[in-house]
C-alpha cells in the first residue's frame, strides 16, 4: 500500500476575527490526497473561514495548519517560491462569485491565474480555451463578468480555477443559488474532477449533494467546533445533530 502525506493537517486550529469574534474552535482535520470532504453547518458556523484558512488567506489564531507537510504561516507564504507552488496546487472557489470575478472580461478572468503562474501566452490560451469549453461558456468569453447571471458567474468562477488546474479544490457552496439543472451539472462536473484524482473540500448546506460527492462529512456546530464527522452513512444516522444544526428539517 502506498503511503502518501496528507494534503492538509489541522491541529487544534482556532480562529477569531478582529474584534474577537470567534469563527472556529479546536478544529482537528486531516485530508488525504484524492479525498472528497464535505464541511457542513448552519449559517455562521465557520465554513467559509475554514476554507480561507486552508487557502492560506487567514492564519490560525491558535493551533497549526500544515499543507503538504509544511506549516502554513504568514511568514511561509511571504516566501515567493513557496507561495507560487502553494497557489498552483490549491484553488479556492469563493462563496460570493462577485468578489472572485474582478476582471473586465470573462477571458481575462479565466486567464488571470495561469498568467500569474508565469505561463507563456500560447499555454495560457490553451488552458483558457480548454476551461471555457469544459464549462460550456465559450460564448461568454467577451462579456463582462458582472453582467452575467448567478449560474453563469459560478461557471466562470469554476473556469477561472480550472485554468489553474489545482490539485486541491476548496469549494465554498458551489451549488448555492442555482436552479436544479445547473446544480446537477455542477455536481457532475465536480465528480469528474474527483475521478481525475483531485482532492476536494466542499462547504455545502445540502445533505443530498454532500452525500453524493463526499467520502467524509464534517459538521460544524454553532459553537464553531466540529460536532460530528464520519461517512455519509454515519452522518445520516445522527438525526439529532443534523436537525439541531439546521441541516435537516423536523418531519
Amino acid at each position, binding site marked *: 500500500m502506498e503511503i502518501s502525506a496528507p494534503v492538509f493537517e489541522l491541529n487544534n486550529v482556532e480562529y477569531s476575527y478582529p474584534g474577537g469574534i470567534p469563527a472556529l474552535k479546536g478544529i482537528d482535520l486531516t485530508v488525504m490526497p484524492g479525498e472528497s470532504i464535505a464541511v457542513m453547518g448552519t449559517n455562521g458556523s465557520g465554513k467559509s473561514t475554514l476554507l*480561507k484558512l486552508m*487557502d492560506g*488567506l487567514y492564519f490560525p489564531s491558535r493551533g497549526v495548519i500544515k499543507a503538504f507537510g509544511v506549516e502554513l504561516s504568514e511568514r511561509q507564504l511571504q516566501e*515567493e517560491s513557496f*507561495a*507560487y507552488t502553494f*497557489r*498552483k496546487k490549491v*484553488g*479556492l472557489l*469563493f462563496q*460570493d462569485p*462577485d*468578489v*472572485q470575478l*474582478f476582471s*473586465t472580461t470573462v*477571458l*481575462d478572468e479565466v*486567464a*488571470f*491565474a495561469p*498568467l*500569474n*503562474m*508565469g505561463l507563456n*501566452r500560447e499555454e*495560457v*490560451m490553451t488552458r483558457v480555451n480548454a476551461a471555457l469549453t469544459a464549462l460550456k461558456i465559450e460564448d461568454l468569453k*467577451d462579456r*463582462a463578468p*458582472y*453582467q452575467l447571471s448567478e449560474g453563469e458567474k459560478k461557471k466562470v468562477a469554476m473556469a*477561472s*480555477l480550472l485554468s*489553474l488546474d489545482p490539485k486541491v479544490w476548496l469549494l465554498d457552496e458551489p451549488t448555492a443559488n442555482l436552479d436544479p439543472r445547473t446544480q446537477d451539472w455542477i455536481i457532475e462536473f465536480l465528480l469528474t474532477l474527483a475521478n481525475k484524482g483531485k482532492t476536494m473540500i466542499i462547504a455545502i448546506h445540502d445533505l443530498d449533494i454532500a452525500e453524493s460527492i463526499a467520502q467524509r462529512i464534517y459538521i460544524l456546530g454553532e459553537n464553531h467546533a466540529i460536532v460530528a464527522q464520519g461517512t455519509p452513512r454515519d452522518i445520516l444516522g445522527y438525526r439529532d445533530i443534523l436537525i439541531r444544526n439546521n441541516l435537516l428539517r423536523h418531519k
Partner: protein
Amino acid sequence: MLDDYSKTSTDLFETLHYPKFRRRKDFVTGTLSNLTSALERTVFADLYAERPGLLQSIDPRTKVITFFILILATSLTHHIEILLGLYLLSLALASLSRIPLGFFIKRVWIFIPIFAGIIALPAIFNIITPGDTVLVIASFKHPHGIGIMHLPSEISITKQGLIGASLLVSRVATSASFAILLILGTGWTRLLKALSAFRVPRVFILILGITYKYIFLFLRLVENMLLARKSRTVGRTGTKEKHRWISGRLGFLLGRSYHLSNEVYLAMLSRGWNGKVHMLEDFSLGLNDALWISFISGVILLVTLLELVWR
C-alpha cells in the same frame, strides 16, 4: 458590439432614476446614481480603450511618457493662448480616438467648478491679487481692520486677478483632459502594466489595482442598493423616510464595500497574484509610436518657441 455594451450599461443606470411620474426631482438619489454612472463610465470605460482609434494604436508606455510631458508643459506655460491650444489638442485627440466629445468635455469640467470655487475664485479679488480694477464690489469709507489684517478701502475684481484665475483654471482643465484622455484611450489594466514597465514600485501598482476593484465594487453596491430600494417603494415616499434611508445605507455601504474589497484582494491572492501585472497581450513599439513621438516633440518644440517669443 462594443456600442451595444455601452448601451446596456447606460440603460442599466437609466433604470436607477426614479419613475417618471414622480414630479419632484429626487435630488439625492438622482445625484447618487448620476455620480455612479459618471464614475463607472470614466474610470471603467475600458470600452473606449478597445475602440480602433489614434490613441488606442499607440503603445501604452509611449503614451505614459508623452502624456507626462504634455501635462508638464501644461503646468509650466504662462500663456493662456498656449493652454487653449493644448486644450484644443486634447479635444482633437479625443475625437481622433473615437471618444465622444460631449462625454469627454463633461467628464473634465464636472470637477472644475469645485476646484475653481475653492482655489481660483478668491484670486480674482484685489485682496489676493492687487492690480488694475475691473469691477468694484464694495467700498468702505474707513479702512477696516480685523486684528492685524487690514482690508483695503475697497474690494474689487482686478484684471491681474482675472488673468491669474483663468490661467489656473485652464491649466487644471487641460491637465485633467490629458490625464483622462490617457486613461480612456489606454484602459486601466494596460496603464498599470505600462507603469510597471517604468519600475513604479510594485506596492504602488498593487494599491492602484485594488483601488480600481474597490471603486468598482462600491459602484455596483450603490447600484444594487438603489434598485433594491426602488423595488420596495411603491408610489411616493416622504422626504424624511428617504433621508433616513440614505443615511442608514451610507454607513452600511462603507462597511460593506470595505469588506468586499478585502475579499477581492484575498481572491486575487488566492489565484497567485503578487502585484505583478500580467496581460494576455504584449506591448510592442511600432511605426505609430515613432510618428506619435515626433508629433508630440513638434508640439513641445512649438510651445517652447512661443513661450520664448512671447516672454
